């Protein structure tokens, strides 16, 4: 049964959508629950627009994260009708009459739709993500590098990855993709260290190659492919 948290009655010709939002505030709420809202959705409105209307007009205590509102910062990732997406880049009118919003998986929940994206940094740090030039000062792979779009650290792929879900030590698609990028720029001082990390438990050979990570990436990055390159390079 839908019990709406607001009352909006259909007016002539206006497109109404039902938005179902998973709510949970760890430490305060006993159980997760869903709130239902019926809202008007105009052309060009994104899921982020709709969330903003719900927040400002119906539910002041709703929590979600955004910053740039133009697909650049990677802060507004969530699960929209069962698929990891950026809220600011998803048009509401492509989603049908019912929109279900849930927080990303594989991250600790802060509140409602907000997760602690920074937790994946503890794994990210392990791969020595900082760039360091080769010993001779050269960078060979720069032109290849420039062809790629940069990773937003939006966490969509990390949320989607089934191995991360079951094996906490798995470094995951964001870190392993970054490792590939750095390695592809040419041999550098951290190469040996990274090879060790990559071929250890939780590294590249734990990836099960389902390819879900690339399928949700808003930057058209395919972390699985990056992992395959590393697997090839550092064959067991």
């Amino acid at each position, binding site marked *: 049964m839908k019990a709406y948290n607001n009352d909006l009655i259909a007016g002539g010709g206006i497109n109404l959508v039902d938005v179902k939002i998973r709510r949970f505030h760890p430490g305060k709420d006993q159980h997760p629950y869903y709130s239902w809202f019926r809202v008007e959705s*105009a052309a060009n409105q994104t899921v982020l627009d709709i969330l903003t209307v719900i*927040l400002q007009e119906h539910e*002041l205590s709703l929590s979600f994260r955004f910053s740039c509102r133009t697909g*650049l*910062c990677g*802060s507004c990732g969530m699960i929209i009708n069962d698929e990891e997406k950026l809220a600011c880049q998803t048009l509401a009118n492509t989603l049908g009459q019912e929109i279900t919003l849930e927080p990303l998986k594989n991250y600790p929940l802060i509140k409602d739709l907000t997760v602690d994206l920074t937790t994946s940094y503890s794994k990210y740090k392990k791969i020595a993500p900082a760039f360091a030039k080769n010993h001779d000062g050269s960078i060979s792979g720069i032109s290849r590098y420039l062809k790629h779009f940069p990773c937003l650290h939006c966490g969509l792929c990390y949320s989607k990855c089934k191995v991360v879900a079951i094996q906490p030590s798995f470094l995951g698609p964001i870190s392993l993709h970054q490792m590939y990028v750095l390695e592809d720029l040419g041999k550098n001082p951290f190469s040996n260290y990274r090879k060790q990390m990559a071929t250890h438990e939780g590294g590249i050979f734990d990836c099960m190659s389902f390819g879900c990570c690339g399928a949700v990436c808003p930057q058209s990055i395919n972390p699985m492919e990056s992992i395959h390159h590393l697997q090839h390079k550092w064959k067991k």
Partner: protein
Amino acid sequence: METLKTNMVILGGGAAGLCAALGAVQVSSSIRLILVSKGLIGKSGSSRMVQGGFNAALKGDDSWKLHLEDTLISGEFINRQDLVSTLAKEAPRCIEQLENWGCFFDRKEGNIHSKTFGGQTKSRTVHRKDFTGIEVTSKLFDQLLAFEEQVLFLQECRALQLLQNESGAVAGVIVFDIRKGTLYLIQAKVVVLATGGAATLFSVKAPPMEKSGDGMALAYRAGAQFVDMEMVQFHPTGLVVPGTLLNGSVVEEGLRGIGGKLLNSQGERFMERVSPNHKECANRDVLTRAIYREVKEGRGTENGGVWLDLRELKEDVIKDEFPNMWKRISLLGKDPKSDLLEVFPTAHYMMGGIRINPYGQTSISGLFSVGEDAGGVHGANRLGGNGIADSVVFGLRVGQNAAIAAINESELQRNFQLSLEKQCNQLKKKLQSPFLNEKGVNPFYLRKKLEETMSQLAGICRNEQGMISALHFIEKLKEWHPRTYINGNLSYNLALQEWLNVENLLIVASLIIHSALLRRESRGAHWREDYPEKNDRDWLSNIVIFKERDQEEDHQLKTKIEPVSFTMMSPETVNSRKSILPPETKLRS
């Protein structure tokens, strides 16, 4: 409440804050610092959104002097020349430093490629396609992660109040943890403000919403001086998409640089009339006024904009060079080959700000400022590409200087103006207060009203009467503010955040208007209907505005009008450059 002690606190996780942190750790491995960011570090703020690029005179036929000249001419000579020369001289070295940190810029035939931006005599805007900001902020953060032992990151934490000792020197800050809803009391030897400006004060705006003039408000309360606060830049081409958060997002200048045209509703390419020499590549202030006029005089589109025509550009060039722009246009269901885009100027950047010297020191001991929080570099009109350059050049410099100051300061201050416990208790009470109101307007409504007032009465086009009524309305909003209603609890409460935002925005709004009332002329971004001419005789000056530390109310604002010192170049010298940069043709009025 948790108490922390450190050498140095940096507020802000944009390019300025990140660079300040990297600058500081370069100084000494003994420096310990805390980087506090209201949003996620590197992922919040305008720096992340930089699309166009970074100005640096790298090419053989370019020089720091030309960069300086272009910047001063564009800023209409009220820039602080010592700051501009620092920017122009150090920008090339910073590009090299950034590349050493793994930020790579587009190249052609092995050399770093640059775009031509409005108001520049050389193509000097270095970029990575149209996502330069992501490249820069994410690589700076990657780099900083290697200094984990020296740097403590407090993400999604906002600074609420500076701590001052008995003599007024800054000795720390109280920070609110947005996630947990608790306070940190941080004692430090120096504090660096890098929270970005408050160009979000207007209805149509480009920067992220969390930028709400927090650093400026902190500095103001502490008694710091501000310079040229009336200078708010509008970017000429903000997308018009009513009813969505995409409204006001920027269509990159580079698209005009490669042939994008502006048309009014009659299909006229009006920039040919307004600025025959530069057309769509004129300075931002010129374009902004021209677009505003077209709309006001009835030659605008239905939604109150003008058309941006990209139809003659090559599809693969847009797709390849401006992938984010392509994405955004496609998201709206438009095809740049057949559809026109509706655009209108969008509030973009604050050129005015906290007054600093070239070391980033403010008028308050122990307090530094950098990036968009600081004023003086850009004068009356910022050149595209000079914003991120400012944040990086001064970020590194100011971070180093602040670290040296922290090292030289032997001990943490202990004699505070007010007892720390008292300050914390006051803040806790304040944070609880809106939850106690049973009903009332909500903070989002207050923000909306403030934005409307600023846009209508103190935005692109201003006059005395309008600005005075805006000030009255701001006073009203200040009265409403304590009566605002919020529900839920302190942790991750967006309404509470907005309530705090509005309080700060009201301060910045009133500083902008007070300065704008004083400057009785039109110059760059400051356009007064009642004083439509530029008046070099009386106004080659900076407006300095502040309140004394111990004064509570801002109707006791102090102001000073200080003539610019032309240490490097004066308006007269420009005439000798006429052949390179023809003067702007005057707007039809």
